[in-house]
């Protein structure tokens, strides 16, 4: 199957310069780890696992995503979808991020029908990460 040029570009950009494409992780012990929400979705047996982390800061009473990182195991469009999601997240409030729908990723990357599940995975990842961040807050 041939992907759109956008998927190919995003994929290659990520591979060439992972750090610049926000590939990475925050781990326990890192300075701001208490302000990081993590969402992991998918399963190795299905061929897709996406791990998304969002770092939030309280700006004027609302939590804003100031930075985000990801790692993805999956096909080219899963990797491109994660990267696209990251670009959308930065600077958004949690409320705004919650509203991101997979269709936006499908439209930007022109994903073929058979790859729509990759964008669904990205949408689930952000929901998980937000839930995780909120549960951290509740534990404070």
């Amino acid at each position, binding site marked *: *199957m041939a*992907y759109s040029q956008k998927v*190919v570009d995003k*994929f290659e950009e*990520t*591979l060439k310069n*992972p750090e610049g494409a926000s*590939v990475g*992780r925050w781990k326990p012990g890192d300075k701001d780890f208490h302000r990081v929400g993590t969402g*992991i*979705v*998918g*399963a*190795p*047996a*299905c*061929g*897709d*696992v*996406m*791990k998304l982390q969002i770092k939030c800061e309280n700006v004027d009473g609302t939590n804003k995503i100031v930075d985000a990182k990801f*790692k*993805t*195991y*999956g*096909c*080219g469009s*899963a*990797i491109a979808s994660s990267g696209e999601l990251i670009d959308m997240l930065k600077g958004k409030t949690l409320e705004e991020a919650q509203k991101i729908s997979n269709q936006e990723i499908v439209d930007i990357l022109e994903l073929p029908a*058979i790859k729509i599940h990759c964008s669904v995975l990205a949408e*689930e990842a952000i929901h*998980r990460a937000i839930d995780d961040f909120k549960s951290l807050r509740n534990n404070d």
Partner: protein
Amino acid sequence: MDKKYLFKRNNVWWVKLAVPLHLRDKLGFDLRKSTGEKTLDKALLKRDIILNDLKSNFSEGSPESSNIKSILPRKTTYFDYASTTPVDERVIDKMKECLSFEGAFGNSGSRSHIYGWKAEELVEEARSNVSNLLNCDPREIIWTSGATESDNLAIKGASYFYSKKGKHIITSKIEHKAVLDVCRQLENESYEVTYLEPNKNGLITPEAVQEAIREDTVLVSLMHINNEIGVINDIRSIGKITRENGIIFHVDAAQSAGKIQIDLTDLDVDLMSFSAHKIYGPKGIGALYIRRKPRVRLQPLFHGGGQERGIRAGTLPTHQIVGMGEAFKLAKEKMDEDYSNLSKYRDILWNGLKDMEEVYVNGAQDNSFPGIFNMSFNFVEGESLIMALKNIAVSSGSACTSASLEPSYVLRALGRKDELAHSSIRFSFGRFTREEEVRETVNLVKDSVNRLREISPLWEMYQDGIDLDKIVWA
């Protein structure tokens, strides 16, 4: 010996290639290059490479090649020979002689004039080329449209013909779809099928066949070389068992004919399927071997003009048949050379990659054909690896590259975990593979796997010492 394209000057063998008409203004009548060799044996070894070199001069500005250029815009290494092969130029030359009014365009079934006789002569010569490679009687070879049709004709044809004797068939879980789907169809027609499990190396053991045999078993159908993992079944031992039990033995040899030795006088195989396009012949032509002694009978699938002794009706496609014959003839000449090159390429690839962490070979390493090498790179998804290896054409057992979104049923049948099936890549080499392409691939694969692992959360967990099997995945 075939000295085509070669001539001797000052004691050294040269290669001479005629220039196509439309380029003669620019390039002259022919192109010549020295092999630097004094003996014909050595010159022959270099001929193909030099021919390809010389031919590259034709690619500039010719109307045909500009089309090809737009299909393949960049130089891509082809490592998917198990899928199909390019047609050898010598085969193309022969095929061209069977198309036009000046050539052997006639219907080989026309008995009343020279056009028909000439076509028939070429068809029979091709049949002999095929039977020579396999060491059987030419009368035991029936032309078909390819291995899929041969498999259909063999399995359905034998099952229908011998249905009064029984309706049980034995095959394996890792056959090609052209066998599996035929068996599924026969199940709908009240036949019973036993699908044998391969052992962990991907082989069907003679013992497994023996155990599955029943009173009403009429047919065993197994492949010779597996198309995904390259393992070679012991068809000699299995044939002994089927023969003793009076059961027909069909072997799909689409991947093996012309690549490894097949001697049908020495094997108890009753039916064998062949394809031309896996061995540098054209697509759309294949053959079925049908044993004469002891005689095997089939119910035909096509009915019509009575061609091929009524077993496969339809006007014979002379150019396709001649192409297959020439390809099989070349295969016989080149088998040893091809095989030793393929072994070398596989060793270069494996030696270059085996020290990486978490790489697995799928299928036995001994008892396997070196032209097909299937590996899994754990924690990296196969389709993404193929994308990263963008200038190398390979295939994967990953679900993402299949229409069904299921990972390879072959690798799963070997007991490989799904994630390793998703992470698999099949490299298949062939006659036109060059050593430097394999060496470049080693480096590219290493680099791409490392990069993809850097962005893989599974690799991260593995590095952290987390057991992935114990995680409950969402």
